[in-house]
Structure formats: C-alpha cells, structure tokens
C-alpha cells in the first residue's frame, strides 16, 4: 500500500492510495489560494473602476525601442500588483502520475470535488467511478454551476489574452524590479486554465455512483469501502476502506472475533463533533483502525465556534440598530442554513422585527430546495420533522414570511440599488474571495457608509488581503470565523483516548500539534511524497469448514478450549477458502497426533489386559534431555516381551516399538493409545 500526497495544504486534501495495483483518488478539491491576486471584476452593466487602473510597465532590455512595454493583464493598485483577467484555476494533478490510470475516486464532501471536471477534461481516457453521497453530488453540481456562471459573467466584462503567462521575461523582470511584488499566482501561471464549462461538469458527473452512509461497496474483490458520516455538512463523510491483506478478496464471512484479516484504512476529512443540522459524526468503526489519514482540521487552534457565534449576533444587532446593512460573504451552501435559522431565532428573541435576509446566488433557490429534500441526511431531530411531513429546514417558512428573500441571479446590475433592498437587511452572497460574484458590487455600494458592515465568517482567506482592492472603505469590518471542523485539542482527545489508530498519517504541518503517543506510529507527508505504508500482518485467513460427519472435539480444561483434528481438502472457490472434510474414517483414525508423556505403569496394565504377559521391564540410564527431571515417569524404560519378539523403549518424547509380528504390534499400539497418551 502506498500513499501519494498531492497537496501541500492539509486543508486542500488530495491523495492517491494504491492497493494491489488499484489506484484510489481521495478527494480532488479546487485550489483557490491564488484568487486574491486577481482584481475584482464587477458584473456587466456596472461601473468597472478597476479597468482604468495603471498597467504594469515592463522595462524591456532587449527590445530596440526602449519604450516600456505595458502589460494589460497586470495592473497596479495601492502600489501592489494585481492580475486583471477573468479568474483561472490550476489543479493538483501532477505530471508525475498518470491520472488516467485512476480506478476509483472517493469524495468526502461537496467542498472537495470542485476540480473534478478538469480531471475528466484533461485525461480523456480516465474512466474512474466517482463515489459520493447524494447531498455531495447535488450540492457539488450546483456549486460547479455557480462557479461557471460567475466566471462567465466576468469574461463578458473583460476580454484578455493570456500571452503574458507564457512570457518568461515578464516573470524574470518582475523578480528583478520589484521582488516584493511577486504574486503567489506566478508559480502556477503556466498551469492556469480557464474555468470549465457546463458540458465538462456534466461529463464528469456522468461517472458518479451515489452511495449512502454505511453502504458497503465492493470496489474490487479485495477492497470494501463505506462512507461514514462526518457531521461536517449534509452528506459529508469519512471513508473507511477494508482491505484484505492476506489474499485478494474481502470475505463475506465475518468472524465473530475482532480478529479478521481485513486491514482498516480510514481517510478522515472535515469532521466535527459539534451538533449542527447534519447526521452526527460517527467514529465507532474507526476504533483501533490500522491506518488513519487525517486532514482538513480547523485552522484556528482552540477557537470555539459558539463564542464567535454569540459575538456575531451582537455585531449584527449593532449594525442593524445603526440602520446599516450587513454583508456576509459566504459559500452558497453549508453554514448558511444554520445562519438563517440561528439569526431568525435570535431576532425573535431580541424582538428585532422586519429584518430581511437576502440570499443572492444563481443557485440559491436550487440549494434551498435540495437541502429540504435531504431529509435522510439530517440530524434525528430534523428527521422526526420530516416524518410528520414538514421539511427538515425552515427555509420555506422564512421565505413565506419574507424574512428570507432569495435572488437567484448571477449578477446585480447597477440599477438594482441597495434602496431596492428593504432595510435593515443582512445579505449573504459570494464568492468568498470577494473577487467575483454579486459581492463585488455590493461592497462597492456599501463601503461608502460607515453604518454598514461586512462580517467575515470564513477563514480561508485573509480578510485584509481580500479587502485590499476595495480600499479605502468606510464600512465596519469584522472577522469572526466560524469553523466547525475538529481542532487540535479535539483531535488529540479523539486520537489518544478513542480511536487509537496503529498508524497515523498527517501533514508535517500538523506534527507539532499532535500529541505523540508511543502506541501510535506517526507518519508525516509533504507534497509529492510517496509513502509506503507499513505493512500489517494478519494471522488468519477467513475460510469456511464443511463438516460431513460429527467432529468429536477434545476438551482441554486447562486452557478452556477444545481441539479437533481435521482432515480434508482445501479449496478456494468463489474467493472463499473452503475446507471439505473427508468421509474416510480409516484415514482419520490412522492420522493421529500423539502428545504428552507415557504413563509406564498404566501402559503395563493395559498390556497385560490385552494378554501380553511376562514382560521384562528395565530402567535405562540413557542420556535424557530433561536431566533435571528425576521423576520416575520421565525415565526411559525398556520393555521386552517374549525374548525379543517385541521390544518397547519408552522415552520422554519418543516411544519405539520393535516387533515383527503385525498382530502383536496392533495390540501394543492399542494398549499404548488407550487412556494413556494424548491423541489428536
């Protein structure tokens, strides 16, 4: 088993696990860390003040005319370099690995699959099955659509060419001239691709297989996967892989004991022990697993989400009392459902009436409809509601009472001024990076008034950097991240007191924060590491025994168990080891295994019982292994019968019977086996 790590950011998990020559891709998220290097672009029909920004002047050394070359796509704002072009993305796949060989793709939640259309676009031969849960599929699809439509709006606004990306001079000279202005994006410049299209999305999603929590999926005969609820969002899961180490099959036979020949590999992504709206985090089957791959923990160590939540409500209340509006940039699904209900409840409490919450996104209506149809994926409490016929979320009620207003448009025109929004209002919209989507116009409009406020509840981006192109701004600005994912203190408790994995695989960034434990073997990875996972031996193969006749097991009271001798054929059929017992009684009787010591006195009595008299018994003073043991029974004894017709030498570990007469030999044998020596 090998694990190939493709990402340098533990919050952007992407791995390839190879088992028995099968390649399993674990998650394929879309990196968006470079987005802050772009300039925001408003939607068509709005004033684009960024278009008039000064272009970056490249001092060309080798050109004949010494005029500085202007690069249209690089602009300078606040003495900082920005890229002025529609958003482009890079992906985590590397040329070191042929991705068309991937057999299986397992997805944890809708945040970690957004780059998949690129994968299926780049590798045409890729024919992998994508396994994900239904909410992951539906929300993932919508988020991809949203991304496509946002970027489409951008490209309507500006036309650019991407020649600059392939001109090495530019990067060299930028490095020379203004080292501090180097952009994060430059390191990926050549890899950047324009956003995928709806067709790409649909093509990719045609490979989807929808699974349910705890559904056992036989990937290949040797691997069984199941999605286990992780509690983070609707349909989010951790993947549990049961891999047969001894032979290439996962037996359908389950042993009653904990001993089975399956190795358990757990891939733990965003998980939370907090109770939100989704099905609870379940880790019962993770206990004592063999490998635990841990990723996507909370950035903020020991920050309690509930503290920020109370502060958030206080801030919102202040702004609203100040007759301002609140802008909350957020993702179009997930936390937002909690926010709606949490805020309405809070407003009711403090008796703040007529507050309007706006949810602006091209997929707002679809997402609300989908979330209400996912009644099998919510907490038990909400499930009970759906059993009595009410949707699990209160969106519909809120929309009816005009508390929540959805605007399912991918852009906001200038004509649609804030006056149209009924004050006081809270506006939820995207994109988080503040570089595209309706949020761009909204900031431009709202930033002038100091009574308005913007609250960042996500911690993916530095809010200072995100707001930089919009400076100067007057509006209030708060940073109250709500991250429900497990933090280090929770993870340490979970690892050391509950799960106790045999091998833990974490990013090296996490190493310092994970409490070390002798019993847990910790492996760390970096980008492009190819780790060989320590092999784990299982001492048993699962098989089945077909008994034809009765077995007569021998009870061994000292060790409280029973043993029986089995003779038969061992076959492998339909991936099951089958032992078919033989009918042949004869061969069974003769196939005895003898153990223990011979009680000479008893043997002599038995011999006399079967008519063998006149024995010469002689103690032998032979060299014996058990020198210290001077007991009579351990001594070697020679028994002679009828002047050497039979000679028996009894030693502590071996008995020799010398006899030429078969019938006499049988008699001696029976006497020896009768109530004396242990047989198996």
């Amino acid at each position, binding site marked *: 088993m090998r694990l190939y790590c493709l990402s340098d950011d533990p919050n952007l998990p992407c791995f390839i696990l190879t088992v028995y020559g099968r390649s399993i891709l674990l998650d394929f998220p879309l990196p968006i860390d470079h987005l802050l290097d772009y300039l925001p672009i408003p939607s068509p029909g709005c004033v684009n003040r960024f278009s008039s920004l000064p272009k970056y002047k490249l001092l060309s050394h080798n050109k004949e005319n010494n005029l500085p070359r202007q690069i249209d796509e690089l602009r300078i704002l606040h003495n900082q370099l920005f890229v002025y072009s529609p958003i482009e993305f890079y992906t985590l796949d590397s040329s070191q690995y042929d991705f068309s060989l991937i057999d299986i793709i397992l997805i944890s939640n809708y945040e970690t699959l957004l780059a998949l259309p690129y994968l299926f676009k780049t590798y045409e031969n890729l024919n992998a099955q994508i396994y994900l849960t239904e909410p992951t599929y539906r929300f993932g699809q919508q988020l991809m659509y949203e991304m496509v439509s946002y970027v489409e709006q951008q490209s309507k606004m500006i036309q650019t060419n991407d020649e600059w990306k392939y001109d090495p001079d530019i990067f060299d000279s930028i490095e020379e001239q203004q080292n501090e202005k180097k952009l994060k994006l430059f390191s990926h410049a050549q890899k950047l691709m324009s956003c995928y299209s709806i067709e790409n999305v649909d093509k990719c999603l045609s490979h989807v297989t929808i699974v349910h929590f705890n559904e056992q999926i036989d990937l290949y005969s040797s691997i069984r996967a199941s999605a286990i609820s992780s509690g983070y969002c609707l349909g989010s899961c951790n993947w549990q892989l049961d891999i047969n180490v001894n032979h290439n099959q996962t037996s359908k036979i389950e042993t009653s004991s904990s001993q089975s020949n399956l190795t358990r590999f757990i891939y733990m992504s965003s998980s939370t022990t907090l109770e939100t709206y989704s099905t609870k985090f379940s880790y019962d089957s993770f206990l004592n697993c063999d490998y635990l791959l841990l990723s996507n923990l909370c950035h903020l160590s020991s920050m309690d989400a509930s503290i920020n939540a109370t502060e958030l409500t206080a801030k919102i209340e202040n702004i609203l009392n100040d007759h301002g509006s609140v802008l909350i940039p957020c993702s179009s699904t997930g936390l937002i459902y909690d926010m709606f209900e949490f805020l309405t409840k809070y407003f009711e409490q403090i008796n703040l009436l007529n507050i309007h919450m706006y949810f602006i996104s091209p997929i707002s209506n679809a997402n609300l409809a989908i979330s209400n149809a996912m009644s*099998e994926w919510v907490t038990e409490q909400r499930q009970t509601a759906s059993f009595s016929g009410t949707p699990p979320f209160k969106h519909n009620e809120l929309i009816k009472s005009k508390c929540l207003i959805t605007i399912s448009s991918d852009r906001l025109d200038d004509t649609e001024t804030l006056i149209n929004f009924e004050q006081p209002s809270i506006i939820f919209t995207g994109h988080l990076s503040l570089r595209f989507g309706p949020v761009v116009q909204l900031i431009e409009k709202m930033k002038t008034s100091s009574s308005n406020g913007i609250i960042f509840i996500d911690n993916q981006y530095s809010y200072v950097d995100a707001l930089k192109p919009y400076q100067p701004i007057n509006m209030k600005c708060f940073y109250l991240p709500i991250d429900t994912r497990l933090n280090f203190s929770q993870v340490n408790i979970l690892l050391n007191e509950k799960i106790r994995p045999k091998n833990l695989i974490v990013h090296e960034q996490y190493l310092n924060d994970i409490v070390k434990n002798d019993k847990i073997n910790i492996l760390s990875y970096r980008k492009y590491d190819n780790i060989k996972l320590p092999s784990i031996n299982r001492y048993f*193969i699962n098989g089945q025994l077909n*008994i034809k006749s009765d077995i007569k097991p021998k009870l*061994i009271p000292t060790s409280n168990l*029973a043993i029986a001798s089995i003779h038969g054929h061992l076959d492998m059929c339909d991936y099951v080891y089958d032992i078919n017992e033989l009918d042949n009684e004869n061969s069974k009787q003769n196939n005895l*295994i003898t153990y223990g010591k011979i009680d000479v006195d008893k043997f002599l009595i038995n011999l006399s019982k079967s008519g063998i008299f006149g024995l010469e018994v002689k103690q032998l003073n032979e060299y014996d292994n058990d020198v210290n043991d001077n007991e009579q029974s351990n001594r070697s004894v020679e028994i002679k019968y009828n002047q050497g017709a039979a000679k028996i030498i009894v030693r502590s570990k071996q008995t020799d019977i010398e006899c030429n007469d078969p019938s006499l030999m049988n008699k001696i044998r029976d006497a020896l086996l009768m109530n004396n020596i242990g047989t198996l």
Partner: protein
Amino acid sequence: MVWFEIIPSLVLTAGPLLLIAAPTIYIGNWFFLNGKKYGPKNMMKDDRDYYMYLRDRRITGNEYYPRGVEAIDERPTLMSDIRILPLGAGQDVGRSCILITMGGKNIMLDCGLHMGFYDDRRFPDFSVICKDGPLTPYIHCVIISHFHLDHCGALPYMTEVVGYNGPLYMTYPTKAICPLLLEDFRKVTTDKTTQQGPYTSDDIKNCMKKVIPVSLGQTVKVDTDFEIKAYYAGHVLGAAMFHIRVGQQTLVYTGDFNTTADRHLGSAHIDRCRPDVLITESTYGSTVRDSRRARERDFMAKVVDCVRHGGKVLVPVFAVGRAQELCILLETYLERMNLNVPIYFASGLSEKVNTYYSLFVSWTNEKIQSTFHQKNIFDFKHIKPWDRSYVEQPGAMIVFASPGMLHAGYSLHLFKKWAPDEKNMIIIPGYCVANTVGSKLLLGQRRFLFDGKEIEAKMQVHYMSFSAHADAKGITQIIRQCQPSNVVLVHGEDLVMDFLRGRVQDELKIPCYKPANGETVTISTPHGVPVDIEPGLVQQLKEETADVSRSEKRSKQMRGTLIIKDGRLRLVRPSTAMNELGLVHHTVQFHSRFPSSINIRPITLVSLIQLLERELNSNENESKHRIILISDNLIHIDNQQLRVSIETNGDVDIAWTLNNELLGQRVSSHIKSFIDQHTSTASVIIISDSAASPDPM
C-alpha cells in the same frame, strides 16, 4: 423472448378458465380469486410444535453460534436450514406476513392485514408464534417492505396489542407515510358508537416510535453477524426489497416490486447477490402486460369519452402511490389538451401526502430527481381537494377517491351515489383483494346490498392495470438479476403461483416453493462453518503441491487442527496447535527388524527399491508413493514417513510412525517375504547389480 410464449401455454393449461376472460388476460386473476372464498388454512400442528421448540431453544440460550464445545455437534444441522412460514400471503394476496428462521434468528417479513375480512381474520394469526404474551422473545427482527396496509396494517396490533419491543425496520418514506395510512384505516374501521377498533391512535404513535429507519443500500447491523440491506423496489414511494444475512445464510425478500419505471418512480434493482433463498411476490406472475404508454392512452381515451358525454369518472385509488402517478398523467394530459373538467382528489388523508414526495425525492425516478430543484412536479395545478358537497354537483368531473378497493371511505360512498347512472364510469386502476366491493365488481357482480338497500351498478366498469407490480417478465428478470439458489413464491393466487413455479423450475432451473398459509417450507442451505485459517497452513499446502499435477493437487489431503475457543474456530497446523497449547509431541515409532545373513549375500537397497516400486506403485488406482534413496543404506518413502535402513550388521530396519501404520505394515510384510525368499534362494539366484533399474526418481 421466452415470456411471450407464456400466454399460449397458459391458455392450454388453464384454457377453460381463461376463455371467459379471454380479451383481457389479466382478468384471469380475478377468476382465480373467486375460487378462493375461504379464509386461510388452519395452522398445522407441526408448526406450533416448531415454534415451541424455538422458544425452548431461546430459554436454554443455546444459540447457533458455538459458545462451547457442546454446541458444535448440533450446529451443522441447525445452521443449514432456512424455514419459511407464511402467516399470510401464502398462495393468497393480502395480509402479508412471513416468518423466517435462519441461523437461529426469527425474522418477520411484513405484518399486513387482509382487506377482505372485517373480523380478527384480517390479522395474521400471531398465536402461532406464541399462545399468549408478548412476541419479543420469539422474534428477533421485523422488517416492513412498504406502507401498503396489506404489508403493514397489522403492525400496531402486533407491537402494541400483542406486544413486541424488538427491532423494527422500514425505509424513511415508509416510516413517514405508514402512520397516515394506519390512522386512516383506524378511522374507517373504528366503530363510531362503541369506539372499538383494532387499535388506537396512540398505538400507532407508539408503534412508529419503535421503527428504525433505513436508507437504500445502507447495511444495517441488527446483531452480530446479522445484517439487512435495502434495495430499491419501485412499487410505491419507499418500497424496498430487503437482503438479509445471518451468518453465511442470505435471503432476499422482494416485498412488492415493479421492474418498469413509471411516471414518478424508478424500476426495481438488485445486485447479483446470490442469496440462498429469494422470496418474491407473484401477484402478476402469469401475465405479461402491454406497454404502459398504451395503457395510459387507453385510460385517457376512456376518461375523455365519458367526460365529453357529461359523465362522472370515479377512479378509486389509494391515497399514496397510484394516485400520484395518475395525477401526473392527468395533469400533463389536460395541460396539453386544454380540457376544462374539474378534477378532485378525495382522500381521508391530509393534503400533506404529496409533500412527502418532495421530502423524499431521492426515492422517485431519475427525471424527477434531476429537475426537482427547478419545478416541483407534485404541485398539481388542476387537481383540487374534494368537498362532500360536490357529490350532487351536476356535470362532468373526474374524482380520484380513496381507498382503492372500494371497501370503505370516499370511494365507496361515491360509488353508491354514482353507480346507478349509466353515463358515469368507474375505472379501477389496481389490484382488489378478494371479498372487497372492487373485486366483486370486477368479477361481474352488478347488484350490491348496502345497508339493506340494493343498488344496481349501471355505470361503465373498466379495469386497467396501473398496478405497480412486476409481471411475469419482471419477476424472472429479478430472479435472473440476483441468482438465488431457491425461490419461494408469496403474495399471489394459487394458480398463478403454479404457473410461475413451473416457469422458474423449467426455465431457470431453480427449485421453487409456494407454501400455503401456515405451511412451513424448510430449505437446506449447505454452508460451512466460518473458520480462521492459519496462513501457514495454506502456505504449507501450496508448497507441498507446488510441482504436482492438477489431479494430485485435488486429492492432496490437508491435515489441520481445529481449535475452538470462546466461540471462535481456528484451523491451524498441528504443530502450531501443539506449540500454542504447550503440548509436547510424542513420537510413536514402530520398527520391524529382519536379520539377514551377511555371510550368504548382503541385501542391497537397490533391490529393495525395485521390490517396493513394484509392490507399492504398480497399482494404477492408488496414489503413488515417493521412494527416494537417501544414502547407501537408507531409503525414505513419502518424505521420511517411512524409513528403510540397513544396519551395520546387515539387519534390515523398517521404521514408521503411528500415522503410517498401513503403509508400514505393508512394506514390512513385503520386505519380510522378500528376505525369506532371498535367504532360501540366495545360493541359486544371483541378483546382478547391473540389472537394477535406474533410480526411480
């Protein structure tokens, strides 16, 4: 297509019966139905004894998995059977309730009621399981396949009145919709004056609290080595087929299923799970239905025709299921045809029913799933809720009324009102259980007595099977998909089952059973006992057989030691077992020693090998022994199992261990006679060394 041949052969076998209903083949079912007036057969004494036996087993705590040595002897017999006892739905439709016993677990599949009876016969006879007192100790698990009353109607009675607290499984939509239908049934059957009914509202609520919901595909662990898994069945929203595994025994219960997708649901699907037993419904086991499209066209043509003449169309349906399918059909049709006729939906259930469809969208068909977030197809524009005052309203109208079998409620009420007018029409779109007004109507009865008043039904009566049951083709398709070792038919008429059983046995070559109510079928399922094998044992065997032919490999014996501890079986090499148990191996070695006189003529081992080759390996039928010359004075036979050596004094010593007695005695007798012969004829015959055969190896 094999199944199209069914119809002619059916006509041949059941020709006279079918001639009456020749134009519409499915009416044949109703004819069969009439022959079965009587209630279920009485329970057989054997079954009572069997359940008593099961109870005794529980008390002694002697469960199927070995906890000690005592258990092992009886385990093989106990494990190798699956027993199936229908308490209802055995050669009958309605009151589905099947008891199965596998691997020591008693499982109840469905717990339905019979619509055709109004007394206690409508419930399954729970006294078979236990004469009185709660059922919890005797039943390990109850599984409900879908929310139709003939599959879940007796559930509150069973859990609350008879008493059952064990696990109870149904799918999410079933759990949501089931209480509505139960409540509806309770209202209809509860006596208005005495307030006496089968169960109370609270019973239903308490019963539903015990339900554990399951999702499609989710593997639910009921107990150690006892799992259930739901597959999509398509019949109604939330209908599921259940795969049950206890130990190594597996069983699939289809419940009711439909293999053709309709306007709102998808088609049933199952993996190739190769169960030991498949229990399948067989409602339409002898028919092959025409395409759904043709049926829909036919339905619309009849409706439009009636409405154009100012008639009223009554469509008795159950509130959930067919109703939604027909509503979608009418809605889309009317929108296209621009027909302005009021459509009403009369049901004892609240409007809410349709909202369940949007809450459980993942259980509908793919088309609805992919578009539900844009448009909710279950928000009907043209279909209005019914009001009692509309009965007297003149003019054309279309009314969907529950229940579907005309045994009570709105549909019966409307039938009474509208039946005498020949302009009106009734279209029965689904199955009607025997004894209900619906089934009588379909069988041609036209005069009915209601509350002492005779009503003659002059209205047009049509039957159109929109029933979401698989037909003969669909049932075989499912059987082919999951490849069971045995098939058990339930939920169908006796004659239909006979026919289907013939097909399954002849064409699919699978043993097929059709137990009657109260009749136990015992199916033996040969399975081994799970055992943990030491890899070394397999490895050793592989090494031993690495360079031998296939046939020799097959005949190669394995010798292992079975260690039974704490209910776990391990098969290890004998030496491992000895080590583990701290036992010291004691070798018992036998010797035969024959003196030979050196002075005459020493015996050479080469000549002995020759002899043994001839004597031991000449017989074609026996397996060959490997005879190897190790040194000048030592021969090994079969890997040291037997040694022949010549001592310094010329004596021939043959040594073998206890396990090779037969071989040892054989070899020694051969050598003995050889030596005897040799000494007597030593002077005469000179054995030349050059005549010795080459080394056999």
